[in-house]
Structures are given as C-alpha cells and as structure tokens.
C-alpha cells in the first residue's frame, strides 16, 4: 500500500500578491519593480536578514516564499529536502551579468551578480537561513509539473532521505514571476497528490 503524505502548507507569489494556504497576506500594485515589491514583502514580514538585500530577485522571491511557508514551524528539521523547478533558470541574472562583460573596453564583471548565475543558489540561500543539511535538487522544465514534484517528493520520503520536503516552482523572466512552494510532510490533513498540488498551485 502506498504511504500517504500531506501538503501541510503552501505559499504563492503571483500578480503582485503573496498568499499562504490560499489566504492573501500582502499585495502591492504600486511597486515599479520586482525589487521594490520584494522589499515591500520583506518589510511587511518584519524580517531582519541583511543578506536578503544582496540576493538577486529570483533568490529574493524564493526566500520570501520559504519564510512565509515556514513561519508557523517552531523548528525546521535539518533534513528537510528542497526540490525546486522553473522554466527560465537564472536567465534574469544571467542577462545582468552579460551586461557587465559585453563591452571589452568597459569590462567589469560583478562578483556579487555572478554568484547568482545558477538557479540552485536559491536552495543554498534557504538552506543557510534554516540550517538545512539536506537533499536538494533543481530542475529546469517547460511548466509547473505537479506529477514530477509529487513523485520526487514521495521518493525522498519513502526512502527516508528526508523527513519533510519543500517543493515548488520559482520562475522569473523579464519582470514576470510565478512562485509556488509547498511543504510536504508525514502528518497533516490535505493528502499529497498531483491533483491536489496542482489545485493549490492554480489557486
């Protein structure tokens, strides 16, 4: 018999809004940029984490979603795995890096930009914040794939590679973003299934 797992909570950031478990937490239709929007969420959540300001926008979005997702957890188990995916990889920051190196006469690549030219840095930032020493995997896919994320999370839990899993989709490309993180655990009310994960993603 298949072991049952649960979607304990989920967080979405889309259309200038951030919500948890389907309930709106914060919205901002006035910000001109994702940077300003993310800073607004940071202030709303009353976070004190200076490293946030150094992150690229992709990392900021995943960081904020993880903060909301884990906000009601007294302690996050260090073997909480991370399984993330997106479509545009780190293209947003790749372009910024490209801008600093395209002119051979004005060639000043920024180390602070360069370090974010990989999408899996998102998982590094979340791991540092919560002291996770866990399995993590990042995938580039054409679209949100609930079946894939569900299956991958199940395997990690079935094989005791992780006690919980944070899985989801964090995509950013040319000021268009779509963020959805879910916390998968062995206890809860909402059974994990690809249909349920997809419903929460679309909600």
């Amino acid at each position: 018999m298949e072991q049952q797992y649960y979607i304990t909570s989920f967080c979405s950031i889309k259309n200038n809004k951030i919500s948890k478990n389907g309930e709106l937490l914060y919205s901002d239709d006035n910000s001109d940029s994702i940077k300003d929007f993310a800073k607004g969420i940071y202030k709303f959540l009353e976070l004190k984490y200076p490293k946030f300001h150094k992150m690229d926008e992709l990392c900021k979005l995943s960081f904020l979603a993880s903060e909301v997702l884990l906000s009601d957890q007294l302690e996050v188990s260090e073997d909480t795995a991370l399984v993330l995916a997106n479509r545009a990889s780190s293209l947003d920051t790749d372009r910024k890096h490209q801008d600093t190196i395209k002119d051979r006469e004005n060639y000043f690549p920024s180390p602070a930009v360069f370090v974010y030219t990989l999408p899996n840095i998102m998982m590094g930032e979340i791991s540092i914040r919560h002291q996770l020493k866990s399995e993590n995997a990042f995938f580039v896919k054409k679209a949100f794939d609930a079946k894939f994320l569900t299956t991958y999370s199940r395997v990690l839990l079935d094989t005791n590679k992780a006690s919980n899993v944070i899985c989801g989709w964090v995509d950013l490309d040319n000021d268009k973003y779509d963020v959805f993180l879910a916390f998968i655990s062995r206890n809860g009310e909402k059974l994990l299934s690809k249909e349920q994960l997809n419903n929460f993603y679309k909600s």
Partner: protein
Amino acid sequence: MAELQEELKEKIIEQLSLEDVEVSEIGNDDPLFGDGLGLDSIDALELIVLLEKDYGIKLKDPKEGKAIFESINVMADYISKNRTK
C-alpha cells in the same frame, strides 16, 4: 580626505547593497570585515572591482585587499596615494 571617505561610504553601501546601513553609521576606523560591517568574501571581490573601476587601481594580488580594506581610513589613504583616475 574627508570627501573621499564619505564618497567611499556611499559607494560601499550602494555597491554592496547594505540597505540597512546609513553613511553616518560607518566610522572611519570601524573594521569593514568581521565584527564591523560584517562584509564577506564576495564583498571583498566587489571592493577589488570598485577600486579598479572607479579609481583605476588594479591589485596584482587579491590578498592585498585584506590590508587595504581594513577600514575606511586605510582604504581612503591607499586610494589617494595610488589612484590613476
């Protein structure tokens, strides 16, 4: 020298995204790394780029940065003696 010191503080805050830090909060003798502003290794590389880009100073050995970036005072003194722009 005071003008350069203020300029450096502004550039460091801007370049290193120290959004919670004000110019007035950085003392001229405060250590920039460790217990001071808490800068990290990526920040050190960013400061090396800043030296070259804004003041025309190219460090031959990145390890030189450890002494040069000790404080605003030390950094300003080094820049004023070695700048080419």
